[in-house]
């Protein structure tokens, strides 16, 4: 369950000096907890609040650690990115962190899987300069089977975000064995072209860099998922452009 006391929460990691991951030099706060259960997940320690790789931190601790980086964040035009896990999972903690950082003039961004109650987080999302939102599979049944959560909610939240006027980027994790075939990608792009015409879109190729964490947690490493071929990714980019979407990359 999400923590009820918002003055502290479960943190997986605070990564200073994140680059190529949004604007400027960023500090990424990885918040634990996630409603989905994707078997390919690169951050398995985010699947629960409390585990050997997370720690309980107070809002003050997190905020003061971030503010030490403030000069670098300011000059580079960077800021803080909330990630996870699913950062909205500990909604109260997220809100408690976003407030003082926003007030200190820190640029904020969030990476979300799209599974949240929009009404509960609308005020927090309003503080974000940029929202990165995952879209994992076009088929409702397959989506539910892979992630454990319904596609509807994701698409509904995507609509909310679009309508709110926020600057947002849709992210497709491209995973051979799940969605990395041109038929599936075509369906996804068609849905996006319809739901959020000319949206910014980032393809994130699957990688196995999270395996070490499975080992650390004593869990079996994911099997059956592969990194898509570069040529396929290039093809998907082209297909996106054809549909009026705007593929981007923070490289």
């Amino acid at each position, binding site marked *: 369950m999400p923590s009820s006391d918002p003055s502290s929460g479960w943190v997986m990691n605070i*990564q*200073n*000096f*994140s*680059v*190529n*991951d949004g604007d*400027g*030099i960023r500090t*990424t706060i990885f918040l634990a907890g996630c409603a989905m259960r994707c078997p390919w997940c*690169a951050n398995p320690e985010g699947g629960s609040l409390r585990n050997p790789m997370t720690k309980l931190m107070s809002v003050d601790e997190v905020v003061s650690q971030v503010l*030490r*980086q403030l*000069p*670098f964040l*300011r*000059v*580079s*035009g*960077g800021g803080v990115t909330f*990630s996870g896990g699913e950062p909205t999972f500990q909604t109260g903690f997220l809100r408690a962190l976003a407030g003082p950082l926003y007030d200190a003039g820190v640029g904020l961004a969030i990476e979300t899987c799209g599974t949240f109650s929009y009404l509960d987080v609308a005020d927090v999302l309003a503080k974000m300069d940029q929202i990165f939102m995952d879209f994992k599979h076009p088929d409702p049944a397959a989506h539910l089977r892979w992630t454990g959560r319904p596609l509807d909610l994701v698409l509904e939240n995507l609509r909310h975000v679009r309508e709110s006027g926020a600057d947002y980027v849709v992210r497709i994790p491209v995973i051979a064995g799940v969605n990395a075939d041109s038929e599936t990608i075509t369906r996804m792009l068609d849905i996006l072209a319809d739901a959020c015409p000319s949206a910014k879109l980032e393809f994130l190729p699957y*990688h*196995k*860099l*999270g*395996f*070490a964490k499975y*080992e650390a947690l004593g869990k079996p490493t994911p099997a059956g998922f592969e990194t898509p071929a570069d040529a396929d990714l290039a093809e998907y980019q082209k297909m996106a452009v054809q549909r009026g979407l705007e593929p981007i990359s*923070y*490289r």
Partner: protein
Amino acid sequence: MLTERVEAIRRNYVEAKPCISYQRALIWTQSHQRTEGQPIAIRRAQAFYDCCDLLPVNIFEGELIVGAIGEFRKCGILTPEYSWLWVDREMDHFDTRPQDPYVMTAEQRAFVREHIFPYWKGQSLEEAFLARVPAETAKIVVDTGIVDNDSKWRQAVGEVTPDYQDVLFAKGFGGVAAEARAKLAALGDTDADSLDKADFYRSVILAAEGIVRFANRYADEAEKLAAAEADPVRREELRAIAQNCRNVPANPPKTFHEALQFVWFTQLGGILSENPLALNPGRFDQYMAPYYEADIQAGRLNEAQAQELVDCLWLKLSEWVWTISANTADYFAGYNQFQNLTVGGKTREGLDATNAVTYLALKATEETRTHQPGLSVRVHQDCPPEFLGAVTELVSKGTGFPAIHNDAVGYQMLLNAGYEPQDAKDWNNCGCVVPHFRKTGEWTAAVNVNFGSALEYALNEGRSLLTGELMGLPERAASNFATFDEVKEAFFRQFANLCRHSITATLVAQKLHQELVPRPFLSATIEECLASGRDLSQGGAKYNVGPVITGIGLAVVANSLAAIRKLVFDDRTTTLAELCAALRADWDGFEELRQSALVAPKYGNDDDYVDTLAIEIANWYYREIHQYRDVFGNPFNTAFMGISNYIPMGRVLGATPCGRRGGDPSSEGVSPYVGSDCSTPLAAMRSAAKVNQEIHSGGTLLNLRLNHELVATKRGQANLGAMIQTFFALGAFHVQFNTISSQVLRQAQAHPEQYRDLLVRVAGYSTQFVNLSRSMQDAIIARTEHAEF
């Protein structure tokens, strides 16, 4: 893209092993045999003239900028008047030594032993220094690695920035000679001062006429070669070379090409006269831009031609090799002569100074990838984005260049040293990271002091851990220190003693330089020397700045004191007696204690527990050194720079409380101890910026490693630019980046303890490479190889 010509010269530069020429030493020696009894300034000037008159003249294939110091293209020379003992001792192993080998044949060695060295027996600067330095100081400073100033008694000083703006390009050496002649004519001959000045002016006339003679011999040679040249294109080039050498350096240059040739002749004059370290071309883009613009406007030159000419100068600067002892090579590794060339920054009027030549210089370093010149940039907060972009792009190429400096702090450092504001704004770098100015006489790298030794003596009753010898002041056993403050006091007591010996050794060397090795040629390039009639070594320059004493091991000592405070006095997990026993055992049998020492707070992680100690040590050091006066009455200066001096200085140091093992390298500049800044480069920058860098007028240095991938894209480079500007906004002076290749990643896999700071981008974030699993490391190595150029 390099032109074919430049590529061919470059290939030779990369592949050729440097050869030693004794021609200069032979002429110098024979000249001295003829001038015995003359004033030393005249003897040295005459010897210089004779070199210019007699050295073989060599124009190598394809060259556009000409002039050589010997018969070999990649060449080093000997200066027995400074020191020959070490050459005699070491030259039989020149070609096999690990650091900076040279080629010297058996015949050459036999020749110098028979015809050159015998004359200098008992006459060299080295021998004079060893004869005069007090025994108590000699014990600490002669080849010990504790206090090291051997480059000031085995070598010339160098450390000069010839004044192109107000002297050389304004008057030419012909004009300098004329001025000296006029001054000489106006002198009286019945007072001692005038007699000294007369000697000085005569020496300047000889030096100036010498370099003009040298250039004219090159003009003759070029004309001869042109006459015999079958290829019409090369024939024209040779004719242009002849024309250039006929005009410069006798007269002010008329074209960009001539101006470049002038710069090289000035370097040649400096090299032949004393084989100097850090003979700096200075603010190249400032004094070259008018010639570039005039040529472009007149249609005499296009950008590509200008680039090729600049490339040719870069190769010339790199083909000269500094001849140094194995010991000195440990301190200044990589055939490095430290000819520092500075671009960017602000003008004397405070406006942005970048121009077209700024970019030619950056590009030349990017494309030729030569180790010379030492390219420095001055970055100010409002510098053009394209300049910062070009700087960070060059960083991304992995050459280690440029050295990036904070314009405002360089200015502040010179103000502190007593410069007028406009002159302070006009600073350039000297050697590596010393802010400097062309009208200056200063020993910018007078001494290196091993901070770690002071701590070692404090904890070991004044004795060296490795030899057991009493090297410091006698001290009570460390187990008797009841408080952390007592430990610190003992450290500062020992430290003060090392500072004192540094000063004594420098004063002895300064006096000897005045007596034995005046510098007519380089004095001729400095305005105030000409006006005052005094040699550089006599304090003739407009600014005489006190010698710079460089501190080595700031991080090691701060970390060690922090470990003592933490483990002994705060946590009480060990005692000083046990800790010192561990140090004596080089940690053998104390592995657990060593682990807790290693995890104690470390400088470079933005942790005030230890950073405040670094600040305290640095401030104390400044106050201590600054109270002493040099031969001209100027306060000594401090610096935290480093070449490779932290390696030999680590070698003589036993284990330290920070967890370092005996003999391992110490730390350089204001950089964290290698591998111990395990947060982010931003934290390392925050720590380094706390050290009141602007009070250390001798310069401060921070080296950081950066994964190549982080700067592979324009966006990555923009972030790097922001990082640099932030670091500078925090008050820091210098930063330089080594970008990391897959090869380095492999080394990090093999020796993780030395690479704990190495940051790699994993997936949307960056983390310590050594903390990743083996399989993940392999994945990243594969990816880095993929991204490499």
